[in-house]
């Protein structure tokens, strides 16, 4: 998918530059010197086996896990500026992280939950603590819920929604937040095929508006369908490969990441996206 013309500022600076991220849980190193850049309008799939540090990488970049301790170093730049030293509320207007699940311990309607995405506009110079919800907030929430097909759920309590419906609401929350970089951590895994198709198109539209998206999914085929580029992480703490998703999803890389699975790479006949199958290819079967 190279039909998106990069804008001028995009040529100068990547939306997100991630340089030399290392992270350690106690004594156990999880990430070691991960470096990549995410351009505006780019959808990147972050792939790798369980425990390869995909979520950790996203959380470190989003500022949920803090750098600075022993073995936790690196730099994150947003359009060339140091991202992690920005105030929380400014960061939240640039980048948000969408977790696999979305729950509240207390009664909360879907609309209220999406409205929470507007929290960052109530801080700093743009608002005060007693500023009421503005029309702008309401419009953003309505629009985001409409895009994410959850407008019909707006008065339902989060407790009463299914896992997939909660994921739609969480995505609407992130979109209402009006960020420019969107991190999706298995955030679409429970949606049905209808929803996945619509959300895939939505991500494409957002990318064409200059949003950068990074998504983690265990469903390699889903990720390869949507993503322009791929970043493969392995348990060996290193980046195995990065680049165009077609190049990254090679049989060599896939067998390196999932050595026990016996996988083959094919192509989706209608979209041309690489597909991963269980079992050996016909060619291999002949040579056996």
């Amino acid at each position, binding site marked *: 998918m190279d039909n998106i013309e990069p804008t001028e500022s995009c040529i100068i600076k990547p939306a997100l530059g991630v340089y030399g991220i290392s992270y350690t849980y106690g004594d156990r190193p999880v990430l070691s010197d991960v470096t990549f850049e995410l351009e505006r309008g780019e959808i990147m799939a972050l792939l790798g086996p369980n425990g390869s540090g995909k979520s950790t990488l996203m959380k470190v970049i989003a500022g949920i896990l803090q750098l600075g301790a022993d073995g936790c170093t690196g730099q994150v730049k947003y359009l060339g500026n140091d991202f992690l030293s920005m105030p929380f509320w400014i*960061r939240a207007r640039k980048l948000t992280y969408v977790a696999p699940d979305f729950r509240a311990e*207390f009664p909360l309607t879907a609309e209220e939950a999406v409205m929470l995405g507007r929290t960052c506009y109530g801080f700093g110079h743009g608002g005060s603590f007693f500023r009421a919800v503005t029309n702008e907030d309401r419009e953003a929430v309505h629009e985001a819920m409409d895009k994410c097909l959850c407008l019909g759920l707006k008065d339902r309590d989060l407790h009463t929604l299914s896992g997939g419906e909660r994921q739609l609401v969480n995505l609407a929350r992130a979109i209402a937040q009006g960020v420019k970089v969107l991190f999706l951590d298995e955030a679409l895994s429970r949606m049905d095929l209808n929803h996945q198709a619509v959300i895939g198109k939505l991500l494409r539209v957002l990318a064409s508006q200059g949003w950068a998206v990074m998504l983690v999914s265990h469903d390699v085929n889903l990720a390869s369908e949507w993503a322009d580029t791929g970043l493969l992480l392995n348990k060996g703490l290193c980046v195995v490969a990065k680049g165009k998703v077609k190049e990254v999803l090679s049989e060599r890389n896939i067998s390196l990441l999932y050595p026990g699975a016996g996988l083959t790479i094919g192509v989706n006949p209608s979209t041309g996206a690489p597909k991963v199958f269980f079992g050996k290819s016909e060619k291999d079967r002949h040579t056996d």
Partner: protein
Amino acid sequence: MLSLKYGVIADADTEVIIELRLPRILLATAVGAGLSVAGAVLQALFSNPLSEPYTLGISSGAAVGAVFGTTLGLEWVVAGLAGTAFCGALVFTLLLYLVSIRPGITAVTFLLAGVMLSFFGSSLVALWMALSDSNGIQGAMQWLLGDLSRARLSGAWFLFSGVFILSFILLSRWRELDALLIGEEAAITMGVPVPTVRRRLILLVSLLVGLCVSAAGMIGFVGLVVPHAVRRFVGSLHLRLLPLAGLWGAVAVTAADFVSRMFTQPYELPVGVVTALLGAPVFLWIILSRQKVA
């Protein structure tokens, strides 16, 4: 002669109202509102429906202060039982605060630390009681079960304004509290500086609880039941929840105090016993009926 007699009676009535009833009502409303607001904030802060001032051990610290103060005869030195209790609450709060500023501490570990601190405090109280003369600690015992009968006008006004100011400051953090409803990680990604906010809120809540507990003893269940009940009607957003929780907390403790004075005349039941007796079934009803919805 007759009119003079009536006049005296009227004066006595006024005196009863101003010196006894008014402080008591002020104290009951302030303590009820304070504990209920504190409970609502703690529940959001730890995303845990079971958090309340007692789970965190702050009131336990106050109990330790009160019992030690009484037995050591310190209550005349540090402004009465309330003074030593407040010191106890502050010491335990300081311990909690030291736990909360450790790097990498999560809401769950903090809550567990609070529960442990609470047990530790109760054990200290039990130990002290077992070792000391039982007559001497009668006052502390009565206080432990919740006691509004010590109310004096000046102290009640002080408490009332303290609770009002602290609750208002907590209300001004509604945006952060709302964001915490969907968890700490989500709150961070939505622009809330969670570590700082948590420390600030813990400090404010501790002051609020220390104030309430030192004035009126252990009045359980208000901080747990009232916020849950109010949420069922107005939802969980704090701009609506906190004022209403405060209001209904005040009503609940005032009503419980009324019950404690009226139903066992001429004796007084400790108000903490009444809130627990009435609060426990209500809480059970709340959680069971919520299960049905989910």
